[in-house]
């Protein structure tokens, strides 16, 4: 995309009208107004794309292998660790990182903080894609992916936590599609659709809060089915769902900070002045939210330890590992957020956000894999399982970038809205 940065100063295709007065067709919008050759040239110029090609060259055959020869052909087929990286990272990690949608939606639509509007759509998109790809990961992991809709329509087990997760993620996914669709409607120029979405925005946002509270919590509650398998320090029958919900708050906010920082640095050509001028200030605002969420999380995490009287475990090796996680993934970024916000150090807030994003993934992997079966042995995923996970993530990255390049997420659509 350096083509735009070097050649053209202004944002490409931000309205329906061409510089010469004609109207952009959808096809031209898709090609960003470039010719095939120009598009290919800019694609090949980007080293990131070469890395992606390598990932896919190995990853796609592995995924085919999974669908032709079964999960056992690309994983260790463990009966002791039924859930591996696809769920440990893809579902339990991606979902909290995608809490951004409902958080910013709430901030803007419910609390009326219109100053966060420039970053709201990025947060909504981040949420939508995160959830969508969590479902993609699920489709890789499920034994019978073709039966994804069974819990909805064929055989219902409403007393199960996973039933709640399935329904709420599915419903919330549609809510997010609706929320993000306003950007799409602007882009294709269907104003009626956009206005309709706007008219139900508050309802959508409130249902988003409910659904998010419940399924973020429910993902934690899934582990309460394994009281004897998850290490006591990562397990709390009473607080597991609050731990997961509360950590999803700073996870989602941190993910928006990271995404917006990447956009500012690597996609500035696609951002308008409104976004570029406000993103630093908004980062500080989000960082403040993260710091508050983290201190709350830290307190209830300790309450969880106190409630189950797990103090003795803190003195064991597992206890040190637990303290390491709390120290590196919570306390450290919490102080960085606090100091960064107080002294207006945007860079520090961004690093803090990156640490907390990685930290939350670490926490979820700890709960689902590393500290799971703590009395047995440690399962180390097959390299093909790791590669598949990376490949799906690369796909997520590509789709994310594809949409940011085109839809009015980082910039405002010009003309009638």
């Amino acid at each position: 995309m350096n083509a735009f940065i070097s050649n053209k100063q202004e944002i490409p295709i931000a309205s329906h009208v061409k510089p010469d007065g004609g109207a952009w067709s959808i096809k031209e919008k898709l090609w960003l107004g470039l010719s095939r050759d120009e598009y290919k040239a800019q694609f090949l110029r980007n080293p990131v794309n070469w890395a992606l090609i390598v990932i896919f060259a190995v990853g796609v055959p592995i995924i085919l292998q999974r669908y032709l020869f079964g999960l056992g052909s690309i994983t260790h087929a463990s009966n002791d660790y039924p859930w591996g990286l696809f769920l440990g990272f893809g579902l339990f990690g991606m979902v909290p990182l995608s809490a951004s949608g409902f958080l910013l939606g709430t901030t803007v639509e419910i609390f009326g903080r219109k100053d966060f509007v420039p970053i709201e759509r990025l947060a909504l998109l981040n949420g939508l894609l995160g959830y969508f790809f969590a479902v993609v990961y699920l489709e890789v992991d499920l034994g019978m992916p073709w039966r994804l809709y069974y819990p909805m329509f064929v055989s219902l087990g409403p007393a199960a936590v996973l039933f709640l997760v399935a329904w709420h993620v599915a419903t919330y996914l549609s809510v997010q599609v609706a929320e993000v669709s306003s950007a799409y409607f602007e882009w294709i120029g269907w104003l009626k659709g956009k206005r309709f979405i706007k008219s139900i925005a508050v309802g959508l946002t409130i249902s988003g809060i409910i659904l998010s509270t419940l399924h973020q919590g429910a993902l934690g509650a899934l582990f309460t089915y394994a009281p004897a398998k998850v290490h006591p320090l990562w397990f709390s029958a009473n607080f597991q769902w609050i731990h997961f919900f509360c950590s999803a708050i700073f996870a989602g906010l941190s993910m928006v900070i990271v995404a917006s920082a990447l956009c500012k640095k690597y996609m500035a050509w696609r951002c308008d002045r409104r976004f570029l001028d406000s993103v630093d200030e908004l980062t500080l605002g989000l960082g403040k939210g993260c710091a508050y969420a983290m201190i709350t999380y830290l307190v209830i995490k300790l309450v969880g330890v106190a409630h189950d009287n797990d103090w003795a475990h803190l003195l064991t090796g597992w206890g040190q590992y637990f303290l390491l996680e709390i120290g590196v993934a919570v306390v450290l970024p919490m102080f960085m957020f606090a100091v960064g916000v107080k002294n207006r150090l945007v860079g520090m807030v961004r690093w803090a956000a990156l640490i907390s994003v990685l930290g939350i993934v670490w926490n979820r992997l700890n709960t689902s894999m590393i500290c799971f079966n703590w009395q047995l042995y440690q399962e180390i995923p097959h390299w093909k399982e790791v590669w598949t996970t990376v490949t799906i993530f690369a796909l997520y990255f590509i789709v994310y970038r594809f949409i940011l390049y085109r839809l009015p997420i980082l910039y405002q659509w010009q003309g009638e809205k």
Partner: protein
Amino acid sequence: MNKLINRRGFLQGSLVASAAATVSLAKKSEAATFEGYPNAMGVLVDLSRCVGCRSCEAACNKEQNLPAPAKPFNDFSVFDEMQHGQKRRTDETRYTIVNRYDIPGREHPLFRKIQCNHCQEPACLTSCFVNAYTKTPEGAVIYDPDVCVGCRTCMVACPFYIPTFRYSSAFHPRIMKCVFCYDTRLTKGLPPACVESCPQEALTFGRRSDLLDMGKQRIRENPGAYVDHIYGEHEAGGTAWMYISPAPFEQAGFDVTVPKEPILNYVKDFLSIVPMVLTIWPALFAGFHLLATRKDKMEQQKKNENEGEV
């Protein structure tokens, strides 16, 4: 106009909520405590009798048409097999396993048969979101491969590590687990194949309530011969398959940290907050919204009035 729209949005929100609330009500009623079927059958396993002949493994393999084993069932070198530092476990080719435990201070090793314990309130069943599991009045926990999605939550939930997954198949994967010979034998009143094959009668089949009496009688009438505990009487809320042992259970590989209550009890805390969130959240956040945007509204109103005056 803006206000109207907001109200509409709010109504839609609450519709979603109430629809979901109905679902969660059903949830509560199903989560009620279940004491077990009165005439449910069970098996009492007496570790002092088992000599590790593996006849039960062979009988199970035949009865359930499982794939041929790697080694014959009268090959006892399998007792030395270790994987990840663990003794053998159930997998997609075997519903039951006998393991040997050499216990320091005991002249003879103990043998422990592992299979589905057929809980009274099975964790696999309560965690399944497509109702693939059923606890039958006869006492068996059976599985329906036709509705299973393959999420493997049951495997996570089972405190005894029993359900296994047919990872080897891309098109016909399913959970593989002991079903108490439900369709072939239990429904006809017959003991499961493993029980019938046992030469030592280490496996006693009968009504669960009778087996408890029997187990207690054996413990009482043979002082010193058994540890005074029936594993499975209360473990995981009670199981249909129960064990008595001459040595402490942990020495024979049993997980004695398994809770003495149904696994579902650990999940109830979360399930109980669901209706609360569904009913309180919409009102709460609509309230926040109205409060937070009140100032804007008032300003707008003022502006309108001013315009009217002019």
